[in-house]
């Protein structure tokens, strides 16, 4: 047998079986189609006698078939097509409702996203918030029209920042890990559903209009300890809305009483913090880092939490001789009593001394915020481009104290192990 014949033979033996899911989808397609255009034909054949009524009925059927064709059976939308469409529309408006299983409920809002750094939120109570993080000093404006009151909050050194929103997360779903949910009818439209669970804490359902290939509804469930603690519903989407840029101004309108608040996110004391200083201020054990041969530079600073809370944290930056920047963070309440979610992450390393290293569910965003804040505060560490390799690991010491480790570039297991073994409890 010639090689070509052998290839022919092999290719002919190829067999991949259609999944039951595809059988179900095709069945649904056929049933949907069988329900629609043919029934009037039976009635026609029985009751229509004259040519005029036949012609009139034919016209009705032509219109009916036209509507059926224009509405279509809805050729299936691939998830990649939804992502492609979303990437074409940066500006969007949606209604966002949050349902919490307990605690304070959040009012429903209409949110206008200009981009990831600028948005306007209109509450159902009439209050408005503008959040502008495009510049080094971020600004928020809160408007209370009933009281004619405005609160301007300046967040010094907080920006420029991109705040990843739910649509940004949705865009990252990969085709292979996004499951189809079939179709549902809503307001006369047939929507196609997709499901994606990137980790055990987040569960997304997205319903898409097959014509526009854009989301019509998004539901995000936040799950902790196996319970849905919060569900965010987004609907009433309007992509490329027409609201003018002036609607995003952080200047208070005329006639409003203005209260100005300042939150300073710039480094409190960029230089000269010692590990002993940390120990005095933390409500649990603090750790010093013994210098390793591959450290080029090490510096500790005290800083407002770059994630946006007003807590203070201690960040130790390490510049390595292979060009990496690593930031270790310690803070009050960085402990297992507070961070109960950590053991549910992937355990990536455990040292003989019992130090455990876990992944972080939003590791790259977390790493970006800490690396950017540190490099801005200590210019000698600056000049690094934030890398796509960046990652975060949570270090759990045997006594339950937690430190976070963010690095700009990949690190070998040996490097990470040496680093966490160099942590010394400050007596």
């Amino acid at each position, binding site marked *: 047998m010639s*090689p*070509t014949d052998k290839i022919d033979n092999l290719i*002919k033996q190829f067999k991949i079986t259609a*999944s039951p899911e595809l059988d179900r989808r095709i069945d649904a397609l056929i049933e949907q*189609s069988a329900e629609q255009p043919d029934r009037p034909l039976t009635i026609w054949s029985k009751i229509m006698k004259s040519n005029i009524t036949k012609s009139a009925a034919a016209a009705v059927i032509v219109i009916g078939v036209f509507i059926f064709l224009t509405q279509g059976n809805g050729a299936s939308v691939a998830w*990649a097509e939804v992502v492609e469409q979303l*990437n074409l529309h940066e500006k969007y408006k949606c209604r966002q409702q949050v349902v919490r299983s307990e605690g304070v409920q959040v009012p429903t809002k209409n949110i206008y996203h200009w981009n990831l750094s600028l948005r306007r939120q209109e509450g159902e109570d009439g209050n408005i918030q503008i959040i502008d993080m495009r510049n080094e000093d971020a600004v928020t404006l809160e408007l209370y029209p009933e009281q004619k009151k405005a609160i301007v909050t300046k967040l010094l050194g907080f920006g420029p920042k991109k705040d990843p929103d739910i649509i940004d997360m949705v865009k990252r779903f990969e085709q292979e890990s996004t499951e189809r949910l079939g179709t549902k009818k809503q307001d006369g439209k047939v929507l196609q559903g997709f499901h994606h669970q990137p980790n055990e804490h987040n569960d997304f359902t997205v319903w898409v209009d097959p014509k526009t290939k854009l989301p019509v509804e998004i539901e995000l469930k936040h799950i902790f300890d196996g319970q849905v603690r919060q569900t965010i519903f987004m609907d009433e989407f309007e992509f490329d809305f027409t609201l003018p840029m002036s609607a995003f101004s952080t200047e208070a309108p005329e006639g409003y009483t203005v209260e100005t608040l300042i939150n300073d996110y710039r480094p409190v004391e960029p230089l000269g913090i010692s590990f002993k200083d940390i120990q005095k201020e933390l409500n649990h054990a603090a750790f010093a880092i013994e210098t390793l041969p591959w450290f080029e530079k090490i510096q500790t600073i005290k800083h407002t939490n770059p994630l946006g809370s007003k807590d203070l944290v201690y960040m130790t930056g390490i510049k390595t001789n292979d060009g990496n920047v690593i930031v270790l963070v310690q803070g009050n309440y960085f402990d297992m009593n507070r961070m109960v979610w950590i053991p549910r992450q992937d355990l990536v390393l455990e040292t003989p001394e019992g130090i455990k290293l876990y*992944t972080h569910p939003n590791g790259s965003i977390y790493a970006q915020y800490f690396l950017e804040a540190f490099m801005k505060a200590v210019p000698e560490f600056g000049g690094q481009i934030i890398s796509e390799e960046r990652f975060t690991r949570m270090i759990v010491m045997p006594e339950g104290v937690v430190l976070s480790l963010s690095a700009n570039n990949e690190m070998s297991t040996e490097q990470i192990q040496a680093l966490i073994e160099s942590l010394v409890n400050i007596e």
Partner: protein
Amino acid sequence: MMRFNRGDATALRDIYGLYKDDLVTLASALLHDKTSAEDAVHDVFAKLLDRQKVLKISQSLRQYLMTAVANAARQRYRLGKKTAEVPLDSESIPESQTQSPPESAMLLDEQQQHLSSALSALPYEQREVILLRHFSDLKFKTIASLQDVSLNTVQGRYRYGLDKLRSLLNGELL
């Protein structure tokens, strides 16, 4: 097919039952991803229903469906290439969620896996010619019209593809 043309949509169920595995196999071998492959087959059947009354098929039904699936797969391949250019921040999604080798979903035996991997290493157009020729039994002339290129180009793609396939399989199967 006559039942289908007369408006009997359920005839499509019989057509689907008869050819579904062949169509999914072709699309999977072309796209190397079973989810996208099944989407391509679904697209073809959705379009068939849309065009039920006006559809005239002059070739064999199997060949018609194979050609339609090849067209739908090519569209999806091009779309996939475009969206892959969008930078993804994979860190925010745990790696275990994103690392799903397409082969694992296909459940092929070892020999077929070798062939599947070798086929996926070929440029798309060469892979398409080889599969349409050997799996779908289409003539070069039909493939040329499908790819919108000359007969010589198709034969060239076939020859190069076959040579590369032989060297990729490197005596393991041949």
